């Protein structure tokens, strides 16, 4: 399952970011070169505590309701899943020590022995069953119901064995168990907390290297090291992590610079330059699965003609956006997923496919002709914009310019940040809007996570796009057990999507993380949403 990048909560966040005179970082200045870091210098030292920033307060840390960066960033260190999503984006056994797929519709998980919950109780198959079943329970209202859509039943088939039966073959189901959908919580804790499970009063009780300690609403969440943790490789180095909620971008960057906060993921792009020159710490970039896209949310208007969508993409100065919006730290996207999501697919299928992708180089003149052939001259399109951050503003302006260049009449509708989220969930909120932007990442190493959301009738198919060939290819891919066959079918779906452009891919940018001078050891990667990254952070040697 994928989701939009939610951003700062305060309506004025963008205004602060744009008006504050924060050193030398101006949008438009570009960082000369950037490189990805696999692992920051080792942080071998013992550490009492470090402080980490979140761009918003989680509304809950119930894994079933954790569908956004802030809760997952915290929860990744507290709760574990049946499988584990590693920093190199591969998947390996987690709380399931092994699994098999005896028939296309059965997945059998052997539960790891010797694992304890934070309250000391041992992990059993009952806990796994109770945890997974919550995703099927309408009363829970899990945000992860989608990966479970093909699940018929979840049963205990032995003291340490759980079997999931599917209605139809679906290999992505197993992959999702490396993310929040595969989280295992103590059945006793779920029962005891009831409706209050995961809220500031009750917290959670899982098996991760850190245990929930306290949550002061509006201010911070504190985790403490779990000394009985099962995996020696990921035993936490720090005794405590304190997450502080800092919705305002400038406040966040200031807190890095004043040393009040030791680090944070998702550094505001317009402070890249300022922070890479900082003496208080270092800025790193890592593997990502995020693509900045312009979603076409209305196919009844002028954008209903694929030629117009193609023309619009050709007229968007994507190189310019990368330069002005993220200081050059990124590259123009050639599809709706990054190359990282293909990492688990056979190379011989993927390489030719990536070479033969349809390209849409910047060519306003040709774009104008193409749009003219569709006869949409002078028609109105509404672009939703939001004062979230400088890159959002720059994208909106670039798309507006492109629309003008191909003869459309663009109109920008500015929407406050919290309301912007509604575009992704509420059809009524999308009414009258032709285009809006998103930063869409995949939670598993599989392009199907993205392309599945463009299937006919899918929840996040915001423009109600429908293409029978695309749906057929997708169906084939989801059902295929053989990785090569699956990659080939997915590639066909991607080819159709890139030809028809239900969404317009803009650019890919790396995951960013700032580390203050006291700490080190983290592996920068988008897997921080599901992997206990904080356990690897220690005092700098």
């Amino acid at each position, binding site marked *: *399952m994928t*989701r939009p990048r939610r951003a700062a*909560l*305060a*309506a*004025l966040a963008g*205004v*602060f970011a744009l*008006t*504050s*005179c*924060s050193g030398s970082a101006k949008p438009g200045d570009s960082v000369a070169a950037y490189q990805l870091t696999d692992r920051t210098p080792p942080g071998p030292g013992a550490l009492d505590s470090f402080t980490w920033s979140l761009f918003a*307060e989680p*509304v*809950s840390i119930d894994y079933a*309701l954790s*569908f956004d960066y802030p809760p997952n960033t915290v929860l990744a260190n507290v709760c574990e899943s049946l499988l584990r999503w590693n920093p190199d984006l591969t998947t390996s056994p987690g709380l399931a020590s092994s699994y098999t797929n005896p028939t296309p519709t059965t997945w059998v998980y052997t539960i790891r022995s010797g694992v304890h919950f934070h309250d000391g109780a041992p992990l059993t198959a009952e806990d796994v069953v109770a945890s997974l079943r919550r995703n099927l329970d*309408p*009363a829970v*209202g*899990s*945000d*992860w*119901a*989608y990966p479970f859509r093909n699940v018929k039943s979840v049963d205990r088939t032995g003291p340490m064995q759980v079997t999931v039966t599917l209605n139809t073959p679906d290999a992505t189901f197993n992959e999702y168990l490396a993310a929040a959908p595969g989280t295992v919580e103590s059945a006793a804790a779920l029962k005891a907390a009831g409706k*209050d499970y995961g*809220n*500031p*009063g009750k917290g959670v009780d899982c098996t991760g290297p850190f245990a929930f300690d306290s949550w*002061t*609403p*509006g*201010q*911070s969440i504190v985790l403490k090291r779990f000394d009985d943790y099962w995996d020696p490789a990921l035993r936490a180095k720090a005794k405590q992590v304190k997450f*502080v909620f*800092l*919705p*305002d971008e*400038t*406040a966040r960057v*200031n*807190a890095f*610079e*004043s040393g*009040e*906060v030791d680090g944070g993921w998702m550094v505001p792009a317009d402070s890249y330059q300022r922070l890479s020159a900082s003496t208080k710490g270092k800025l790193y970039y890592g593997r990502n699965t995020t693509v900045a896209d312009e979603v076409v949310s209305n196919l009844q208007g002028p954008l209903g003609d694929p030629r117009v969508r193609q023309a619009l993409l050709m007229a968007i100065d994507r190189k310019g956006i990368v330069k002005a919006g993220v200081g050059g730290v990124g590259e123009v996207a050639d599809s709706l997923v990054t190359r990282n999501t293909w990492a688990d697919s056979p190379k011989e299928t993927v390489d030719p496919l990536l070479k033969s992708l349809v390209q849409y180089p910047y060519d306003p003149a040709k774009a104008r002709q193409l749009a003219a052939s569709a006869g949409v001259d002078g028609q109105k399109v509404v672009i939703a914009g939001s004062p979230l951050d400088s890159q959002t503003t720059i994208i909106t302006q670039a798309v507006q310019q492109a629309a003008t260049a191909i003869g459309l009449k663009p109109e920008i509708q500015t929407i406050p*940040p*919290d*309301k912007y*989220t*509604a575009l*992704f*969930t*509420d*059809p*009524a*909120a999308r009414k009258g809007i032709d285009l809006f932007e998103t930063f869409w990442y995949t939670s598993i190493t599989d392009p199907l996570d993205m392309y599945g959301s463009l299937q006919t*009738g899918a*929840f*996040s198919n915001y423009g109600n796009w429908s293409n029978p060939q695309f749906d057929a290819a997708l169906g084939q891919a989801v059902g295929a057990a053989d990785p090569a066959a699956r990659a080939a079918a997915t590639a066909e779906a991607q080819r159709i999507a890139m030809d028809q452009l239900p969404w317009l891919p803009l650019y890919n940018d790396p995951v960013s993380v700032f580390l203050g001078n006291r700490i080190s050891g983290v592996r920068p990667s988008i897997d921080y949403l599901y992997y206990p990254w904080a356990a690897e952070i220690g005092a700098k040697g």
Partner: protein
Amino acid sequence: MSIAVALLRRLIGTALTLLVTSFLVFSSLYLAPGDPVSFLVRGRSPNPAELAAIRSQFGFDQPFLLRYWHWLEAVLHGDFGRSYLFHQSVAAVIGARLPASLLLVAVATALIAVVGIGAGALGALRRGSRTDGAVLLLVTVGAAVPSFAAAIVLRSVFGVRLGWFPTIGNGTGLGDRLHHVLLPAVALSVTFMALVTRVTRSSMIDQLGREHVEVALSRGTPKLAVLRRHVLRNALGPIVTVSGLLVSGMLVSTAIVETAFGMSGIGSLLVQCVDQLDFQVVQALVLLVVAAFVLVNTAVDLLYPLIDPRVGRGEAR
């Protein structure tokens, strides 16, 4: 009219105001575009049965007036419902954030009273002098500085560059809390301080020019006594009125300052809950703010007889 009757009338008036407000708030939220259910089903495609279950769970399927009645009844019992956004009781959500906002408003109020009235009085007494000029200049500048701009400047100068104050968080313990709240309070009160200074200055100048003051002074009554008995007491009316309005208005204007300083209070909570249609929390917050507004202004009215005995005796004021 006795004071008891007046008080009773005020109380009934207050209750009625709150009742009307509660209805307006309740109905306006339901008229707002967007469907709260859409936030509850984030990211998934619920089937109609699931949707119906969610609707009935939150009471969205009941007729409007019935919903209002149930809500009002619960509120009268002190139950503001459950926030669907925070998965907690509304009382817990607001209770966790209210103290920070109250401290912020309290410190800002103290600043307004001390600095505002002090500077105003100083300007009035030294009218035309260089000090008065400085006061006037500061008033003009202060009134023109929006709190978000003040927040940015204060934060970057005194927080980041000089490192005298923390730039984020609420702090723990009274001393630390005050240390955290001072910059935000200055940012919040800058405009209001300027306003109160201006009102104080002109109101005192007005009193200083009155005949009875001049007479008193010419008769050799000590200047300080005249100032206290005649000038300040008579000038206080407008000052208190303006201050009362400002203080109660401040409760809602804390959002910007709270955000800028990474503080968590009811201002930023209100913005968040309005945008995400968390009706239960918004209703409770608006009622709270209206109640604060009405109560502060009632308090101001009750203060009048103490400031000016003629009001208490029912004479014209």
